[in-house]
């Protein structure tokens, strides 16, 4: 009987020791998870910073309406301007854009853009209000 009691006490002590070890592992694992979460959040913030840095806010105005209808679209600076113009054409249901020019109006006057090139190549960054419509007509 005393042998059995001794064995039971021994097992209990072992079980307590195992439990303490498991709790220590659990605490360590939770710290690891917290560290990983923190690193992930940092990485996401850095990704957003890079993405924001390499994007431009764009609004296109035409006499058929604005694209987007309100505010600005965030698009990569390295994207060709015509990509957004085609979206505007579809959204605003403009049938034919032959002879249309995209431009920006600056303090120095109106500057025509090369829509086959990117915003960055056209010297645009940050925020761009692009005017789009037919160039001056022929005649005379």
């Amino acid at each position, binding site marked *: 009987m005393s042998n059995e009691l001794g064995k039971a006490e021994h097992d209990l002590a072992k079980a307590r020791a195992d439990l303490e070890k498991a709790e220590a592992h659990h605490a360590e694992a939770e710290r690891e998870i917290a560290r990983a979460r923190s690193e992930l959040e940092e990485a996401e913030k850095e990704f957003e910073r890079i993405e924001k840095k390499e994007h431009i806010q764009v609004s296109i105005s035409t006499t058929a309406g604005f694209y987007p209808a309100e505010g600005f679209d965030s698009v990569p600076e390295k994207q060709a301007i015509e990509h957004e113009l085609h979206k505007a054409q579809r959204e605003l249901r403009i049938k034919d854009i032959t002879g249309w020019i995209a431009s920006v109006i600056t303090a120095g006057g109106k500057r025509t853009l090369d829509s086959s090139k990117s915003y960055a190549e056209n010297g645009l960054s940050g925020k761009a209000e692009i*005017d789009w419509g037919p160039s*001056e007509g*022929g005649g005379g």
Partner: protein
Amino acid sequence: MHPAAAQALFEEETKHLGPALCGRRGWTMHRIDFPIIDCSFSASGRTPLRMTLTCDNWNDLPPSIRLETPSGEPLRVLPPNPTGVFHAGPHNLTNLPFVCMRGSREYHTHPSHVTDLWDTCRGGSSYTIGGIMTQIWNAWLKGTG
């Protein structure tokens, strides 16, 4: 074109010529109700150009476009350094300077251009009311004075 249909098309095509677009382009809309659009173009260092478009029978007919002084009087002499579409005239019907460009009624009724029919450009995206105004604006921006 039935007058009601002309008015409906006019209103559809001019609904976006509002403060947001005008603010960006330096346009001042003095009046915009069928069949009249009275508008001025402004830009830094330039004398504003005012004009009235009369869009009766739109779009069977192109708009008649009267160039005006900033106060709204008919422009009898063109300002210096205009670009090609601004014709010193006098036009055979109005006896005034005029916009000599496809999409202007004065162009299509001028003896030199009566064979260039409005019907060949009518309905195109560059020949909506806003499209015609944009073409004139772009021509004006290329000039000086």
